[in-house]
């Protein structure tokens, strides 16, 4: 037995425990490696911990982050009001539209009930009108309630915006200034769109509708209250055309007195 063999035997005797320990460590490392490197194994170990922490975090959010988020939102809304309005407008618009539709449906049902439960000559005539015109009786009632009226008719010189003639039921704002401002608005819109031979035809203001009808050297603005719908617009356009041709407006444009008189005669009852 030489020196090296003796040394080996001594090593075996002295280091048996350490070797066994090293071997067990090696095994544990391999298991650990397997656990870390294989997603499934890692997931089995880690998921419950994450789930638990996440649950704790969610439960804590209102307490820990709530005030910060609320404060940040408040600040952001205050600083970017326009952006917030822009973002909310489509949503609110739909909500309002749905609400109005719902309310209109309710109104229609209420009117139907009223019609079915009452009898009068008015109802008899309305029924007859409904049959002859083909318009739903409920629509006729609504039409009666939203009576459209001509409040003011203004004839305005194109370009200068000077008032040529005017009639009104109730004295509203100064007609000369209204004529000027309408012309300025018209000029601005028409300039802005830079489309030749296109005219501004309608302005809505509060519960008034301003119908604008253009001719070569002047235009007529009609202020209407109540429901301004396509049928009314059509009739109004015809009436204005009728007025300009029958009264030969082009020939009397320079004579304010005669033009005013003709306008008053033609639109005296305010109806169409």
């Amino acid at each position: 037995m030489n020196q090296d063999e003796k040394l080996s035997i001594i090593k075996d005797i002295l280091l048996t425990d350490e070797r066994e320990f090293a071997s067990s460590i090696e095994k544990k490392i391999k298991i650990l490696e397997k656990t870390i490197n294989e997603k499934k194994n890692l997931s089995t170990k880690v998921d419950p911990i994450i789930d638990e922490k996440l649950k704790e975090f969610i439960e804590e959010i209102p307490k820990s982050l709530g005030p910060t988020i609320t404060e940040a939102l408040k600040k952001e809304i205050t600083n970017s009001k326009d952006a917030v309005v822009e973002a909310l407008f489509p949503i609110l618009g739909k909500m309002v539209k749905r609400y109005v539709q719902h309310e209109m449906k309710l109104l229609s049902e209420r009117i139907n009930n009223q019609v079915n439960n009452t009898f009068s000559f008015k109802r008899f005539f309305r029924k007859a009108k409904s049959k002859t015109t083909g318009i739903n009786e409920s629509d006729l009632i609504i039409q009666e309630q939203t009576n459209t009226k001509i409040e003011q008719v203004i004839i305005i010189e194109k370009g200068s915006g000077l008032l040529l003639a005017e009639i009104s039921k109730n004295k509203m704002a100064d007609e000369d200034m209204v004529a000027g401002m309408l012309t300025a608005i018209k000029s601005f819109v028409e300039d802005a769109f830079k489309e030749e031979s296109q005219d501004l035809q309608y302005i809505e203001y509060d519960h008034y509708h301003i119908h604008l009808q253009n001719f070569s050297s002047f235009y007529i603005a009609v202020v209407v209250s109540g429901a301004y719908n396509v049928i009314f617009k059509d009739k109004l356009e015809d009436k204005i055309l009728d007025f300009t041709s029958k009264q030969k407006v082009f020939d009397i444009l320079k004579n304010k007195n005669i033009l005013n008189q003709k306008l008053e005669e033609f639109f005296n009852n305010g109806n169409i």
Partner: protein
Amino acid sequence: MAISKKIVLIGHFGVGKTSLIRRFVENAFTEDYKVTIGVHISKKNIEIPEEETVSLIIWDLEGQDDIKNTRPSYLLGTNGFIYVFDLSRPVTFENLDSEVTYLKENFPNTPVKVVGNKMDLVNKVYLSDYNDVFKPLVDFYVSAKTGSRVELLFSKLAKELI
């Protein structure tokens, strides 16, 4: 029935166009400066002796550094122009000649009154320094603040329009 005439006031920013109109229409003045956006329209009837009543429809246009930037449709059908500049701010009259020429060339039959406003802020020596610029062009030296010659300016223009 009064004859209506369209008067348009133009000029640089802050020269006092709105103040002049306010002085003429309401006989009032304020130091607060509110910039005119777009156009503002006022009206005042004035009696012309031995003539008739003239209804002045006064268009106060927003200030422009260059008259060419004024929206052309606002100038259509104008019966009389008042070109206003600020006597105390040379930047508002450094192109006076070309601006007035532009108006006279583009609206040959329309009277133009060239008006130096804020007369209360300058003295005779100052005016004589700029005599070469002002004398050939300026029709009126006025002050919206004191009301000096404002009434005269509008009534003289109204007379020319009849």
